[in-house]
């Protein structure tokens, strides 16, 4: 086969131009890696840029184990709330990351609900919703994705009184009830 048309930019690039381009490619790559990829994908932040940009730990998986060994026995809890039209209540448990709760709640009529968690050191008012919608019941298992307060918000948007009953079993030691501007705590220990 005869020497064909050029397979690179032969004789069209100077040595210094090539070196400069290579250096630029390397520097850009290192910047992209240290500023974005390492903080976002590996939770490593050598320059502190990831923290500043708020992308540090973006891909951190909540460590969900098949077996999570706890040091104490689990507790059980059953509570009921009567909600007049447009009344709402929040009921939550402080839970450590990886700690599990099995739950069932039923309501005598449709309620709006938001099952959510507030990270321990999260910004004021920040919450992550795990399950929200409208319905008369929900049953499930929950493993806390982070340290914080996790639980339900229920609101009666109907015209008649609704009773919500929650039953749980899990590795909590206290519960918090938010109603009418008051916080009620209950200890299980």
């Amino acid at each position: 086969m005869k020497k064909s048309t050029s397979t690179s930019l032969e004789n069209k690039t100077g040595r210094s131009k090539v070196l400069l381009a290579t250096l630029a490619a390397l520097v850009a790559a290192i910047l992209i890696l240290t500023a974005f990829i390492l903080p976002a994908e590996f939770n490593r932040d050598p320059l502190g840029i990831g923290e500043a940009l708020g992308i540090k730990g973006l891909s951190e998986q909540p460590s969900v184990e098949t077996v999570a060994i706890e040091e104490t026995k689990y507790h059980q809890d059953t509570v009921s709330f009567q909600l007049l039209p447009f009344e709402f209540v929040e009921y939550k448990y402080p839970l450590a990351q990886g700690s599990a709760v099995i739950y069932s709640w039923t309501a005598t009529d449709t309620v709006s609900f938001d099952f959510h968690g507030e990270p321990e050191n999260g910004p004021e008012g920040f919450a992550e919703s795990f399950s929200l919608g409208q319905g008369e019941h929900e049953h499930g298992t929950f493993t806390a994705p982070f340290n914080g307060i996790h639980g339900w918000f229920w609101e009666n948007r109907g015209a008649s009184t609704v009773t919500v009953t929650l039953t749980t079993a899990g590795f909590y030691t206290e519960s918090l009830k938010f109603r009418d501007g008051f916080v009620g705590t209950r200890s299980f220990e």
Partner: protein
Amino acid sequence: MLVPALAVAHNISGANARFVEGLEGSAVVPFMYLGAKHMVTGYDHLLYLLGVVFFLRRLREVLLYVTLFTLGHSITLMAGVLLELNVNAYLVDTIIGLSVAYKAFENINGFKQVLGWQLNARAAVFIFGLCHGLGLATKVQGLSLSADSLVTNMLSFNVGVEIGQALALGLIVLVLTQWRQRISFEKHAFIANTLLMGAGFVLAGYQFAGYLWQ
């Protein structure tokens, strides 16, 4: 799970892995599909191919280089799986990232300008084909395959890889052919290959970080 860090190592995704792990005996079509999917969605392989065909104006040359690449990766894919070579996927993928940078550097005539010498481009594409094949082997090995139909399944995966490669190359060559007809091509070609080199470095660094910390 056998498949670590889904986003990082461009692995067969969890659901796909569970599906094929649940299969007994030979599964030609699922493995072909996974091979093709791995190629079409594998930006490391795609960027390398882009670099390889960047300046190949003739179909004959494209076919020659791609055949060398295919030969290389088929050898190590099969050898890796059959001999149960245990190569770290992150390290192989680091080398694959570097292969992208290498090809881009070669494209801007870097080796001749800086070192005054360069490895024959055809030899290089074959050698890097071997590296890419090792990467493919680690992906197949990540699926716990039933031994009785290992060969069939691996060959199916390999055929899928070639189908995916042909599909992707068709598009790449088509776009490059159009691009080359513009007068500004050679000027932009330098910048494009510099960007390609940067992307190769990023991929290599990304995979190496995965090797260190995943």
